[in-house]
């Protein structure tokens, strides 16, 4: 007989589904089956069961081969690297718990590091736009219960956030939305004919890189002013039609993704999208929500926020927190040779950063903490495998609407494996010794969760 763990939180994307059911073997060591998850989420759980999983730290040798080392050695190497560096980059933090992030921040404060998360190549531009013009938003349950107009702009949830449409945005029947998707108008704006676009009631397939123009045109249309015949490849009749649908919504929402945050215009696109939302609040109720990627990138921004006051790109090298995107962001630091060591946890810059940055990481002293083998672990001097957060250890994580959940432990990690938080706590203590001062210390008696 197998037992079933219910209400499991999926540690994959920012949708943070919390209704998974996982069947585990009686002794609690093996995952047998994952229910309710999307294909990506299920794979995350099942991948933890891989027979060829790395369970001990390994150091890359001169010839490119790997040598297994103990966790003690890995802790010593990491602590030495961070303590000896003038300005280490401590990047990632988006696929781990808030407790681990918090310990990482203590280390960064002690060694004078830069803490940056994956928003730096994702929704960092959205965060900058929010700093410019604010953000009218709501929780995902509000969409479920009230929304009758839903816009997806530069995002493709059918593939990137597979259960978003069924749990929150299009299909569910909520309190004031008893007709489910039949009562909702779906507008999709994307240069590509994506699978999400194919579902749209109004699909606006605009010219690539013309999002800012189209958003501005909508603001003109809301005010009933005239437009050129075609804007961003869309006829003015269709723009006026879309504007009317938006204005006549009872409760509307715009979801946006990397199609607008990391294309021409970047944060200015989001500025304009937020102002579209603000304009619409003159007529009705409207919200805007970023489709956050990693399951806890939002949490990283939250913890950085309450501890230092900035959502990403936080430079502690002077002992206090500085934030200046373009200067304190990871790629800018790497490409200008401003950091002399790289520590990565809970992300894969090897796969997602420009090759010019990846080359820099490869040349620097580097440690990658990740349960998987990734392009980043392959170019790092030390790879420290850890237990999967949300599978083998619990911890707090934040959904794309900033809602926090406590993820669940469903199985034991392989014998003797450390968790992120345990590994970081040991590194913190050792760094404190090396720096000849007591670690700055958690201000309270916060416990570190772990096996």
């Amino acid at each position, binding site marked *: 007989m197998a037992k079933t763990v219910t209400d499991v939180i999926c540690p994959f994307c920012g949708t943070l589904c919390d209704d998974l059911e996982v069947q585990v073997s009686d002794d609690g060591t093996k995952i047998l089956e994952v229910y309710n998850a999307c294909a990506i989420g299920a794979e995350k759980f099942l991948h933890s069961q891989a027979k060829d999983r790395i369970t001990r730290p390994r150091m890359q040798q001169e010839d490119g081969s790997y040598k297994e080392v103990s966790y003690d050695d890995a802790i010593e190497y990491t602590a030495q690297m961070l303590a000896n560096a003038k300005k280490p980059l401590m990047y990632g933090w988006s696929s781990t718990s808030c407790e681990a992030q918090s310990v990482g921040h203590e280390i960064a404060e002690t060694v004078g590091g830069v803490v940056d998360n994956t928003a730096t190549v994702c929704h960092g531009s959205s965060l900058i736009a929010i700093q410019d013009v604010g953000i009218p938003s709501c929780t995902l349950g509000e969409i479920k219960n009230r929304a009758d107009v839903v816009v997806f702009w530069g995002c493709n949830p059918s593939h990137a956030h597979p259960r978003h449409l069924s749990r929150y945005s299009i299909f569910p029947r909520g309190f004031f939305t008893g007709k489910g998707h039949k009562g909702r108008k779906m507008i999709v704006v994307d240069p590509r004919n994506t699978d999400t676009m194919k579902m749209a009631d109004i699909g606006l397939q605009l010219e690539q890189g013309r999002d800012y123009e189209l958003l501005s045109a909508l603001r003109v249309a809301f005010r009933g002013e005239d437009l050129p015949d075609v804007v961003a490849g869309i006829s003015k009749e269709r723009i006026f039609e879309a504007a009317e649908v938006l204005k006549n919504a009872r409760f509307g929402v715009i979801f946006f993704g990397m199609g607008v945050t990391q294309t021409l215009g970047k944060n200015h696109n989001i500025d304009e999208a937020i102002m579209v939302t603000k304009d619409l609040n003159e007529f009705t109720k409207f919200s805007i929500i970023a489709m956050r990627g990693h399951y806890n990138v939002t949490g990283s921004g939250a913890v950085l926020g309450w501890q230092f006051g900035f959502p990403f790109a936080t430079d502690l090298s002077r*002992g206090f927190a500085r934030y200046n995107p373009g200067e304190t962001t990871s790629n800018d630091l790497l490409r200008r040779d401003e950091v002399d060591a790289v520590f990565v946890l809970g992300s894969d810059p090897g796969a997602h950063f420009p090759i010019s940055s990846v080359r820099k990481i490869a040349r620097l002293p580097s440690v990658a903490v990740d349960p998987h083998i990734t392009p980043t672990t392959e170019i790092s001097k030390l790879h420290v495998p850890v237990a999967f957060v949300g599978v083998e250890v619990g911890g707090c994580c934040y959904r794309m609407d900033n809602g926090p959940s406590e993820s669940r432990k469903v199985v034991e990690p392989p014998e003797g494996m450390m968790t992120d938080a345990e590994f970081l706590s040991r590194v913190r203590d050792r760094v404190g010794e090396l720096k000849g001062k007591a670690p700055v210390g958690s201000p*309270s008696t916060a416990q570190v969760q772990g096996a």
Partner: protein
Amino acid sequence: MAEYLIKNGFVFDPVTGVKGDKKDIAVKDGKIVDSVSSSAKVYDASGKTVMAGAVEVHAHVAGPKVNEGRNYRPEDKLFGTRAGVNGMRTTGGFSIPTTFKTGYAYAQMGYTVVMEAAMPPLYARHVHEEIRDTPIIDEGAFPVFGNNWFVLEYLKNNELENTAAYISWLLRATKGYAVKVVNPGGTEAWAWGLNCLSVNDPVPYFDITPAQIVKGLIEANEYLGLPHSMHIHANNLGNPGNYTTTLDTFRLNEGFKANNRFGREQTMHHTHVQFHSYGGDNWGNFESKSDAIMDYVNAHPNLTIDTGNVTLDETTTMTADGPFEHHLTELNHLKWANVDVELETAAGIVPYVYSPDIKVCAIQWAIGLELALLAKDPMRCFITTDHPNAGPFTRYPRIIKWLMSKEAREERLTTFKHADKVISATHLHGLDRELSFYEIAQMTRAGPAKALGLMGTYGGLAPGMDADVVVYDINPEASFTPDQIEQAFTAAALVIKTGVPVVENGVVINNGNKRTLWVDAKVNENPQVLRDVEEKFLKYYSVSLNNYEVKGGHYIPNPYAIEVDATQ
């Protein structure tokens, strides 16, 4: 634990009735005691002022809207960011300081207990994570109830016991401290872009009025016998002429009598009354109605208030009054953040500059001071800035200066750009009262502690109470300038928190022994409420019921649960 003796200070303690007598305060094992052994560490407080640790009744210091304020205002960190020294953490932020700065700055002023004024239940974990990371001070958080669908439905049908059972359930699920109400009904209306501006405006769909919500929650609060009363931010905040709505809200409290074992006497606490005391009908004839408001407050002992003093700073407004923040961004055109929270509440944020050159801001400043100066019973009127809404909490020493010195406030009042207009629209110029140290201790210590149901533990120096002792470097019997008052209250000479010295000579020396307060109210098992909870989670929430409750563990590493038994 060590013993301490604070010798020869001028003690001001409303709990024991000591009004500036020279007295020794003895501390042992975290408690105030009658005497200590000769091995006790002695602090010489001669020529100085001694009070209990101060108690903050209402501030927005932890949680999602506070953090959104931090993250969306990098400019708030432009000045005052400091590296951590001596084992302390790095600090930053002015109107919305980081959690580390929040704990340190409160402690430096002699505050040892702080209540977070609005916790959205769905975000309770976030609130508790921030509270955990706020050093030194004991904290509790008030979950918001005034726009909660369960409450609206139960109260519409006059189901008192179900309302109480739901309150008990939600306090436990969120580890909350009290029943907070913000713009009752209006925030639910805001989900459709609407508002409730009077106590009789019906809530869309739910067909209940703010008046019914307020009375129902007072009744449920007293049915349970919670430590604190229903704590309200009324409808129609911030608008000219709103004092009538405030008086209407006060009147809903008539006839209620406190029922609790904590010594609390009020059944309604109305917060940041400054924002609710406006006359006139537009910004041109905007004027103070603090006299009408305080006449009512003074005559009704079952009501307590806090002031919400405007400090004339650039700050960040944030409230669960979603429609108000939208109104504000339309007024000042600064960046607007909003979050509507499913089934529960909403919140908005807008930066605001209270400029001494703007007539309305100066009138608001005067109103806040008038409320405290017109209060006949300082045990029922507490000093707040509704941090950060009317100004940052770090300005308390300046407010105390204005309240204790007519000279200081006249200097400010008469140098406003529109001084003549401000004087004619307010009563402050004619008020000669200067509050005493004893009255300050009532308004910042004994009063709020009693209103929160914590009078046996905090806010006083009687033997048996928690040893939260503060020494201020000011001699009440010598002459001093107004600025010396502000200086003394800004950086305490000594702060002992639950028996541990945490501040010496204005410098934080210890991260303390922080606790999280919450109220565990037991009621008879109520199958209907449990069934309703299950149904709402199944159908309408976007999280599952089993993932909703904040369990202790790493969220609340050091809990201080206050138990209430309402099973009879």
